[in-house]
């Protein structure tokens, strides 16, 4: 790791572990995400991909190891002490502002319009005036091609549109990293494309992205690296060509991809 700050990975995961009671959800995961990199997390269901993602912004409190965002420990006051003390709500909120998150179920707030969903945190977290916040929110909605839907409530948006509003809500906060938790898994097949193309555009503009996905096409063509998880362990983390372009060495990766190959997805 170079001393130069810009060389430092934006996210560093060091020997992280996570338990749900007795169940070991993640074991000894070590992983770097570099600036402007798109990292896709793939693996069978229950392999820990979503848990790993949710530990990155401390929606799940990881138990062992460290997660660093631009060198700063996420969620805990210090890496050592046991039992560890969680950061204050205020400090955690400050950290989370730098990490945007998009969920499988969109999680828009149904009582607010598209514009209000995007502007909410700009007003109440960033402290912008209403007018300025709405301007920014409109710009974010324009980025996801939804300028004409700003007055719609989520109930009157398609799944794909809702997910794009959710993306706008996250990017309006100008995060340094974006996390996506199976962003297209809840969508009808014909709506997947519009969300993926917005994500592709973000990747092209240099956004750092960590994406849990079952869209192998997206992983193959957009990701800089693909991490494969199995039973809570990071099996491999390599450029997509090494997974999709040839027959993978690891039998678990091979077996996993076989199911996709059979459906002619890859």
């Amino acid at each position, binding site marked *: 790791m170079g001393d130069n700050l810009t060389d430092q990975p934006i996210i560093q995961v060091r020997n992280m572990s996570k338990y749900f009671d007795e169940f070991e959800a993640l074991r000894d995961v070590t992983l770097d995400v570099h600036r402007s990199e798109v990292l896709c997390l793939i693996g069978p269901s229950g392999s820990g991909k979503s848990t790993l993602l949710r530990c990155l912004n401390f929606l799940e409190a990881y138990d062992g190891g460290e997660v660093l965002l631009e060198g700063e420990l996420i969620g805990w006051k210090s890496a050592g002490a046991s039992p560890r003390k969680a950061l204050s*709500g205020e400090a955690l909120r400050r950290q989370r502002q730098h*990490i945007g998150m998009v969920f499988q179920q969109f*999680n828009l707030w149904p009582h607010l319009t598209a514009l209000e969903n995007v502007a909410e945190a700009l007003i109440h*977290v960033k402290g912008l005036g209403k007018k300025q916040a709405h301007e920014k929110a409109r710009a974010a909605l324009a980025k996801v091609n939804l300028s004409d839907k700003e007055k719609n409530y989520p109930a009157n948006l398609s799944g794909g549109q809702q997910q794009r509003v959710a993306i706008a*809500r996250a990017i309006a906060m100008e995060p340094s990293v974006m996390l996506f938790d199976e962003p297209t898994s809840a969508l009808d097949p014909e709506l997947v494309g519009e969300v993926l193309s917005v994500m592709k555009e973000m990747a092209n503009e240099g956004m750092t992205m960590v994406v849990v996905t079952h869209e192998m096409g997206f992983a193959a063509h957009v990701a800089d690296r693909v991490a494969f998880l199995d039973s809570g362990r990071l099996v491999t983390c390599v450029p997509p060509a090494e997974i999709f372009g040839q027959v993978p060495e690891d039998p678990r990766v091979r077996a996993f991809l076989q199911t996709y190959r059979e459906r002619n997805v890859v």
Partner: protein
Amino acid sequence: MELDLFIRYGPALLSGFGVTILCWLVGSIGGLVLGFLLACLYRFGPKALGWLIYIYVEIIRGTPFMIQLFILYYGGPYVGLVLSPMQAGILSFIIYGSPYFSEIFRSGFNAIPKGQIEAARCVGLSERRILMRIILPQMLVPTTAPLTNFFIILTKETAILSVVTVPELLYETQTMAAETFTFVEPFLVLSLFYWVLVIGTSWVGERVEARVTRHLRRV
């Protein structure tokens, strides 16, 4: 039907209706506020407090309103709590209603999908903001109908206040019946009054529900 009876007792009945409305409104709105606070403390307060609230809810829900009223009105003076019938009536009404309201709000809290709260945390909203901006406005959707329902139930519970001589509708009606030896007419009028109250309450409830579910309507 003797009309002049109603001319003679009309003012008393109307005054009884007024007292009924007063006790009902102050008592049930008081109960609503107390119930809301209990639900908030139950959800956000320390665990020990949650247990106390749980016990309170079970005790009040598990005993008849009339017994609670008796204990407060007749038992109060033994611990230095001397209340007028009206004060005891309204206070016991607040206590009686609060656990039901609290349960309605508790289920309302649970109805908000966890993901929405996670999304709010992810953009850095504070817990207080999340309560005020995300949870409370949406709680109105699943709670408006049961709240209206319980307000309607409470309109008729006010009749029990007559046992400690609160001069509400039933008390005045019974007085009229006893003094004139007529029974059918006074109690028909009484029913009419309650019916008006119930219809009015459900009308307001429907308006409120239409307002708070506006965003869910597909256009």
